[in-house]
């Protein structure tokens, strides 16, 4: 371990004198540390942090702001990933959707491989009146139908937004639930019902 930091230090000194590419090099050093110091555990593999897709790379490199061209190219590529339900049915069971919205587990190093993943929607969104413990990283979804309506366009938009939020907002903080396989098609339908079923507490 000691040796790595010393090696890195030497590399920094050399490249620092010779070139201006120091900034990108720190990223390389970080990758070296990930390779040598991190171990796969449960569903959380080292591969997962070493091999990132273009969106993750770009959003890491430009975390706080990025050009309009970049944003548009990300949104375009991500829109192309959205898979709509094959049977044309968008709404499942809102009660199960509520459970998914409450559940913050899944895909952590402490979770079992192949377990049921949650959506953890309440971590970031106000959703129902009865749950007072909600976050504010995302907008309130309470009264979703009243605010957005429920026509076909809204339904398709909502599906795509859950499936891959970066189709609309490049580098969004929201996970790409469908695209990254966090929630399966049935689970997304259930979360859709939580937002768009008139009987759901979201719309009461």
């Amino acid at each position: 371990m000691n040796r790595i930091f010393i090696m890195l230090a030497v590399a920094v000194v050399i490249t620092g004198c010779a070139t201006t590419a120091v900034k990108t090099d720190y990223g390389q050093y970080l990758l070296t540390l990930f390779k040598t110091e991190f171990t796969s555990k449960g569903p959380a593999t080292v591969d997962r942090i070493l091999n990132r897709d273009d969106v993750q790379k770009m959003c890491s490199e430009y975390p706080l702001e990025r050009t309009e061209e970049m944003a548009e190219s990300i949104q375009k590529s991500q829109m192309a990933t959205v898979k709509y339900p094959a049977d044309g049915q968008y709404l499942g069971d809102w009660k199960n959707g509520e459970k998914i919205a409450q559940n913050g587990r899944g895909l952590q190093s402490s979770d079992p491989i192949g377990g049921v993943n949650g959506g953890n929607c309440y971590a970031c969104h106000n959703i129902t009146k009865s749950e007072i413990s909600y976050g504010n990283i995302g907008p309130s979804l309470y009264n979703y139908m009243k605010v957005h309506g429920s026509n076909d366009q809204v339904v398709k938009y909502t599906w795509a937004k859950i499936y891959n939020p970066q189709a609309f907002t490049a580098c969004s903080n929201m996970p790409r639930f469908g695209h990254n396989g966090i929630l399966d098609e049935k689970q997304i339908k259930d979360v859709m019902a939580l937002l768009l079923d008139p009987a759901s507490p979201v719309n009461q």
Partner: protein
Amino acid sequence: MNQSRRDVLRITSILGLGLAGGLFSSLNVFGAEWMPKSFEAKNLADALKELGVDKYTMSSDVSVVSAEIAENGAVVPISIASAIPHTEYMAILVEKNPSPLSVAFNIPEGTDAAITTRVKMGGTSNVYAVVKADGKWFAASKEIKVTLGGCGG
């Protein structure tokens, strides 16, 4: 070597007996004994009955002070107090816990009938302070919400 070790053991065990005997007898004289039936009662009514509370009056002279929301149910700070003269006994009960009785205090003369401690709560529940003064029972309660916190994992 063996002999001395045995001596040490003997001394320890005598001391142990003496200590335990002394301590427990002094507890019997001065203090409360642990009451298995009260602590093991599975609901509020049974726990109160086992404590010997046949009837009680809700009183504004008794208070339960805490935050209305607990970030974590494992540690919920609770202060109970009684302004009723001659308060001699106080207990904290968490209605929805599997065993409601949490802790009870004998209040000797000269000690304030006001105690702060921390209890575990399995979920949102009413928390009761039950006190005995001049042989009569009084109570107060407060609802404390236990929320899910953090990142959820």
